[in-house]
């Protein structure tokens, strides 16, 4: 990591209603040194608004919680894929406490969903995701 534009993940979007988790993600992202910009949303509807705005750069990776009030992860995926198709984001990864295999199956039925991770997020997982993002970009 010699220059500022060498972060493997340019923009990471985190959608999770738990504000404490969000705060820890921010710390993990900083320590991992693989994320340049972090977009954090405790409300999935606002994340959707961000994506709909043509002025903003789409994230390289979205980490998405499932169980959220207002709009849950699946509702977000449905709304986002309907609005933006598979161009939504190269890689969406579910990040959840759900141990329900049905949830995993349902998540993976969305073309954009690449992986299903159980919480808590670790630095190592984020570094592995950085590799995935780069291999996708190459």
């Amino acid at each position: 990591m010699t220059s500022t534009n060498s972060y493997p993940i340019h923009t990471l979007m985190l959608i999770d209603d738990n504000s404490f988790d969000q705060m820890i993600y921010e710390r993990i992202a900083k320590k991992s040194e693989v994320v340049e910009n972090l977009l954090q949303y405790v409300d999935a509807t606002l994340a959707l608004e961000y994506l709909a705005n043509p002025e903003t750069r789409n994230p390289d990776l979205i980490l998405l919680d499932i169980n959220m009030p207002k709009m849950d992860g699946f509702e977000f995926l449905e709304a986002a894929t309907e609005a933006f198709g598979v161009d939504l984001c190269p890689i969406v990864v579910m990040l959840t406490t759900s141990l329900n295999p049905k949830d995993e199956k349902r998540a993976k039925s969305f073309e954009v969903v690449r992986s299903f991770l159980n919480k808590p997020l670790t630095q190592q997982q984020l570094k592995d995701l950085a590799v995935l993002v780069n291999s996708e970009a190459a």
Partner: protein
Amino acid sequence: MALNRVILENADPEETPSWQAAMFLKKVTDVVPSVIYVFNQNTQSNEYTNKSLSEALGYSSQEAQAMGANLFPELCHPDDLPAVAAHFDAIHQLADGDVVQVEYRMRHKEGHWVWLLSHDTVFERDQDGNVLRHIGVASDISAQKKAEEQALAEKRRAEVTSEELREFSYSMSHDMKSPSSTLHLLLNELLDSHSDTFNSDALSLIYMALTTVTRMSKMVDDVLHYTRVVNQDLVIVPVDLQETVNDILVEFAERIAGTGAQVTVGDLPKIRADEAQTRILLRHLLENAIKFHPLGTSPQVEISASESVEPGHIALTISDQGIGIDPAKHEQIFTIFKRLNAESEYSGTGLGLAISRRIAANHQQDITLQSCPGAGSAFTIGFPKA
């Protein structure tokens, strides 16, 4: 009409023209899907059966007659023979006009069992008054029996599953209660003994951990509540709603003072309900009514009772002037663990209304909701008056 009068209303059978009676009987025995028979006690065999026996058991009338006295011992299911024997004994004791019935299985000509239901009555007595012949109607109830057996098996399975789930969630929430309270102790001790050595960042992390573990304890408590109200046997007693509500308001005193809530309690009657469950229900509904108010306003809560449309019942209503609920989400809010608001805005476990509806259902009642965003919410539940 003429025939009807002749057959059914004519007091004296002697006056009925025999050809009309015969034609009527022929039509009836042809058209009924049941087996009709006349059984002779002396010969222990059927002297008459209509055509339906062959349909029910696969044998022709001639075949059935040929079996004679062996018909029952040969075709009846061995397990049902004692019941059939007792039934035959009962026929001997019958007064004229009385009917006895029995359910039993008979082997079909193709080998499978057919469930029959027989109604029998005295047909003819000998000179000593003993029953000589009895007449009966046997109906194939196999389809009904099969449905009953299936329903019973389903019910047993559901009972076992629900009992297992109840025990599982009960012991699970119980086992989780202890580590969560230990964690609470440890974090408090950490703050108590070492807070002077922590910088503000470390302190805020510990406070977040404490908030989280408190939330977890609340969740565990609610799961315990839920498992307690699921399938629990009710103890129905007179419950003084006024007293119960006042008790809960005392419990909530701190919360009420903290939010500046105005709670108006109307005249509340005595109802017939399970006392513990009524308390849990009111606690959850009142907690919600106080909780869900727009930031910067004071909760306005009203608890009132009115006559219900259902006779002998009252309708208990807990209403607030809070944030209200989108009618499209009225059904969802009663779903277990479903939450509509961010934890940071309105904290909760998503169990309160699921528990409340369960308690209502335990009392054969439903919770109804009137609410719109911004227009407050009113939850109403019926109870029988004490």
